[in-house]
């Protein structure tokens, strides 16, 4: 009958529409409380294992050192500075992306979550916020380190614009990172496929982020980031956010 052509299960109807014949299903929490419960679990696991954030931060610092030797430059500004910072952050992000769903795939099992009477997109939001949180913490460490190790221009005046750019960029990285992580985690070569899928998708973020940051970090200093690039980043985030929201459920099924 209908099973073969599988209409996709629709979300739970309003209470009035539930047929009286079924015993009342215990309703789980709504979306945001579910996200909160998941987020709490994520952060608890991370605090316990300290797997992602320290590695990402350390990686950033080491990468700055590598860049110094690779480029043979004591200090950088403008385009070069913006580029180095973004590349480093992206690769650090990939470390986080690789670990994002591993605990669920290997231990906790998606099954436990899938059996609960909750909205499945809660997992997307929770993981997205987790990755975003990781990135923000890493940046708290990496950006000052960058300013000390490599940046030729003063950081302080550039900070407001930088924060805006990094926030929007991080949001995009988090959306794409979560989608790619979910896609890659249950495949055979997950540590390889993750970066290969993510990096091309990150390119527009690099474009927007670096073009936005470069004038802030240049000798001929600009005070604010260009609205045009911030808008680009925002739009990209929005489009991929919607796409991730629409597609995520399909990745959770077995």
């Amino acid at each position: 009958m209908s099973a073969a052509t599988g209409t996709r299960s629709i979300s739970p109807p309003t209470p009035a529409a539930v047929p009286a014949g079924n015993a009342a299903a215990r309703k789980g929490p709504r979306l945001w409380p579910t996200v909160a419960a998941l987020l709490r679990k994520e952060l608890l696991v991370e605090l316990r294992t300290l797997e992602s954030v320290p590695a990402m931060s350390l990686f950033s610092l080491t990468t700055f050192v590598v860049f110094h030797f690779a480029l043979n430059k004591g200090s950088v500004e403008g385009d070069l500075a913006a580029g180095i910072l973004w590349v480093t952050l992206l690769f650090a992000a990939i470390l986080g992306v690789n670990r994002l769903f591993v605990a669920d795939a290997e231990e906790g099992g998606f099954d436990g979550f899938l059996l609960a009477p909750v909205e499945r997109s809660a997992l997307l939001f929770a993981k997205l916020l987790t990755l975003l949180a990781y990135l923000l913490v890493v940046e708290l460490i990496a950006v000052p380190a960058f300013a000390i190790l490599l940046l030729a221009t003063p950081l302080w005046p550039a900070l407001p614009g930088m924060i805006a750019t990094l926030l929007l960029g991080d949001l995009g990285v988090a959306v794409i990172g979560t989608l790619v992580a979910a896609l890659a985690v249950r495949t055979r070569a997950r540590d390889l496929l993750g970066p290969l899928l993510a990096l091309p998708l990150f390119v527009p973020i690099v474009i927007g982020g670096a073009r936005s940051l470069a004038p802030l970090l240049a000798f001929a200093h600009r005070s604010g980031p260009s609205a045009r690039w911030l808008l680009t980043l925002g739009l990209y985030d929005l489009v991929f956010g919607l796409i991730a929201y629409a597609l995520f459920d399909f990745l959770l099924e077995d």
Partner: protein
Amino acid sequence: MPAIELTGLVRRYGERDALSGVDLSLQMGRTLVVFGPNGAGKTTLLRVLATLLRPHEGDVRVLGNAIPEQDWALRGRVGLIAHEPLLYRELTARENLRFHARLHGVGAERVHELLERLAITDRADEPVRTLSRGMVQRVAVARAVLHQPELLLLDEPYANLDPAAVELVAPLIGAGIDSDRPRTRVICSHDPGRGLAEADLVLGLRGGRPALLAQAGAVSTQEIAELYR
């Protein structure tokens, strides 16, 4: 209303049939025990009933709801004990159970109660990875019955449990009553003796096909052993 009604259930894995043409009807409060060698489709059947897998063909109705169209109506009413304990190793038993409790809208008292009943309380605040397999299985049982499901799906639930633990666990997953409702159960078992003792209905799977389907009284351990030959 039967708890489970399957008509011509087919679930494929690529070109192979993991389940081909399973028909059965299980009344509420009854226990179905599924026997069969590894790879026969027992776990697949359990996962279809849990709404984790979609049927490719056939009609599946669980607790009156058609799968997959109404699988959302089943979530929170089904409890699953799988091969994996579905617990986060770095979190404690208590934290794992609290997490699942939150997902199901169940309060902390229930977690506390289960920890006591399963005698896990004194190890409840240590990471799961430090617990023995038997203890982990007990926590997994707690996770499965936390929300007092109407239908229990159990994949070899007594594996890794010593007799004392079995005694603790049995009231929670054995035939019995939960808040005025008798428990409906589907159990995958490799133990003909114990399995038959618990069963009302017996299903024997082989290569995805139902090789045997009968009331428990009409089946001998001999016939079950035949399945594995």
